[in-house]
């Protein structure tokens, strides 16, 4: 079985490009050109150079001594939180801004939830001198204020979206509308492995540097490039896609995605799409969705704005359906405790999103000889208000 996208843009039964005709020319151009551009010498040269000198890659693979003692098992953290702008998101936006330039686009749009992707997009637009418009749900503008201010300082226009429940799904709707209205000069930098083909594949390729580095770092540190398991949080699923990518065919490695259970998967306030969802079409992709019997998308909920999304990348829907990866979920409360544990055991304040992956450590049986890599996708600066409110410091 292959876990990569097929010629029609599908992962098994999921994916495709369910676009209105208004987006056809743009998506077709991208589909025809993206692999050629990515594999060209000039692109690779500039991409790897920027990842090294600008993003700060390779990100360290850190053996978490006290956390390992706590769990009685070997735990490594892949430190995507140490990237410039504080998360894995920059890997993708660096790739896509170079792609946009090769396509001759001069205006960039993006959606954002937690603001990490918006920030990473605003950053590369400043780097390359391109105009940047970021759509962000009005609720998220409120709960992720520091990132909004950074985006503005970087010169981006941040447009609050007031439709729906004013979060990531609604920001994505508005970005798609923008692209329909501006088909010629604009490139849409989608922030996750979601949306129409070829976006899920393109974003996964840009994020795959995570697992590429992981392999050589594990080899150097443990003389075995294969860990027992890899844990990553999943909203749309880009950091997990990157962390899983080069291990997909290594069946010995257990791949575990962790969704946001919100207040619990048996409540209506959850974003655990694979647990409570069913197949459908949203944002131009056939994937697992949270929806009612009439096919209306239901509103997700999570304490973390970055995971507050009613869909999931088609690659994950396929990994779930095929059984190649396992998907767990963590509640808000479990996540806050996991964030506190990492902070006080290792001196690292994680992003709320990444803390979902950490929380899943409590749900697993970790044997002493096993090696678990947690993809620490982002840092917690943006979440300080939530942490302070909760812990009452």
């Amino acid at each position: 079985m292959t876990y990569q996208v097929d010629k029609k843009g599908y992962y098994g039964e999921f994916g495709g490009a369910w676009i209105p005709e208004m987006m056809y020319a743009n998506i077709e151009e991208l589909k025809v050109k993206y692999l050629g551009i990515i594999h060209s010498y000039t692109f690779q040269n500039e991409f790897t150079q920027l990842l090294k000198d600008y993003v700060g890659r390779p990100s360290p693979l850190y053996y978490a001594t006290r956390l390992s003692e706590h769990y009685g098992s070997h735990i490594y953290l892949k430190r995507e939180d140490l990237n410039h702008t504080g998360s894995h998101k920059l890997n993708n936006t660096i790739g896509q801004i170079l792609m946009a330039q090769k396509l001759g686009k001069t205006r960039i749009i993006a959606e954002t939830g937690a603001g990490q992707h918006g920030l990473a997009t605003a950053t590369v637009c400043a780097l390359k001198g391109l105009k940047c418009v970021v759509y962000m749900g009005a609720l998220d503008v409120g709960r992720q204020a520091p990132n909004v201010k950074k985006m503005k300082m970087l010169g981006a226009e941040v447009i609050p979206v007031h439709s729906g429940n004013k979060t990531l799904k609604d920001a994505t709707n508005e970005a798609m509308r923008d692209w329909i209205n501006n088909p010629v000069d604009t490139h849409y930098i989608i922030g996750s492995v979601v949306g129409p083909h070829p976006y899920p594949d393109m974003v996964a390729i840009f994020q795959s540097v995570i697992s590429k580095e992981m392999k050589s770092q594990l080899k150097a540190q443990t003389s075995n490039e294969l860990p027992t398991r890899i844990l990553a949080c999943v909203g749309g699923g880009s950091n997990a896609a990157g962390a899983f990518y080069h291990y997909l065919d290594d069946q010995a490695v257990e791949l575990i995605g962790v969704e946001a259970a919100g207040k619990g998967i048996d409540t209506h306030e959850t974003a655990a799409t694979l647990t409570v969802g069913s197949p459908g079409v949203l944002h131009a992709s056939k994937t697992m969705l949270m929806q009612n019997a009439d096919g209306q998308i239901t509103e997700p909920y999570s304490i973390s704005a970055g995971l507050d999304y009613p869909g999931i990348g088609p690659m994950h829907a396929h990994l779930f359906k095929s059984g190649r990866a396992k998907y767990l979920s963590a509640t808000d409360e479990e996540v806050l405790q996991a964030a506190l544990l990492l902070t006080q055991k290792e001196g690292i304040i994680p992003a709320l999103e990444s803390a979902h992956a950490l929380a899943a450590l409590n749900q697993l049986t970790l044997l002493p000889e096993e090696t678990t890599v947690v993809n620490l996708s982002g840092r917690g600066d943006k979440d300080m208000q939530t942490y302070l409110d909760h812990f009452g410091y």
Partner: protein
Amino acid sequence: MDNRINTLFRQKKENILTIYFTAGYPSLDDTAFIIEQLEQAGAGMVEVGIPFSDPTADGSVIQQSSHQALENGMSLELLFKQLENIRDKVNIPLVLMGYFNPVLQYGVEEFCKKCHEVGIDGVILPDLPLHEYQENYQLIFEKYNVHNVLLITPQTSVERVKLIDSVSTGFIYMVSSSSTTGKNQKVEDFQKGYFEKIKELGLKTPTLIGFGISNNPTFMNACQYANGAIIGSAFIKALQYGDLTLEQAISNYIKGVINPG
């Protein structure tokens, strides 16, 4: 029985006014009444919108009407119930327009079957792309004599326009400009070059121009280049009718578009 869309275009070649409205808006049970009033006022065809939670190709007016319709309790199942006896009173072609996911959840074959039963002649699903339609659904649509109406835009290449023409059966929906719905345009904004190019191709399928048509001048202008035009957002705005009755609001608006002054 022949499809009413084909009959319409055989009998009338020009100035066909097609009106879109969202089912369940302004009130849940207005659907059949609005269709009847539209026919009486002079509309040549009606597009009944299936509301969707995430209408990514629509501007703010249809986003609002869809949201309100869903709040009112509209669903595809209820819509078919409301349309059960529509053919007792209405003769003009009726088309359902919406996003693919509600149709997928209903079941595409069940959906087409139901369309056929209640007398729906065509369907417009902008996010059902041509190749997915051809590979998976065309035979089902044909089995139930339901036309799948495809869109073209100013960005659509001539080659692709010809392909779409070859697959199309009812009419082609010519999107007037690169935009979401409801961007009101002035006559001078129209992309004449694009309209003329399409007209010169001499397509076998009739064409209707939509998006940005709002009043008599824009309607008449569009009709120079196609068999007619489609109005959506501007009509939905007219349904916020204040002191008028719903019937008066519809009749006034349609008269204003077809026969002003």
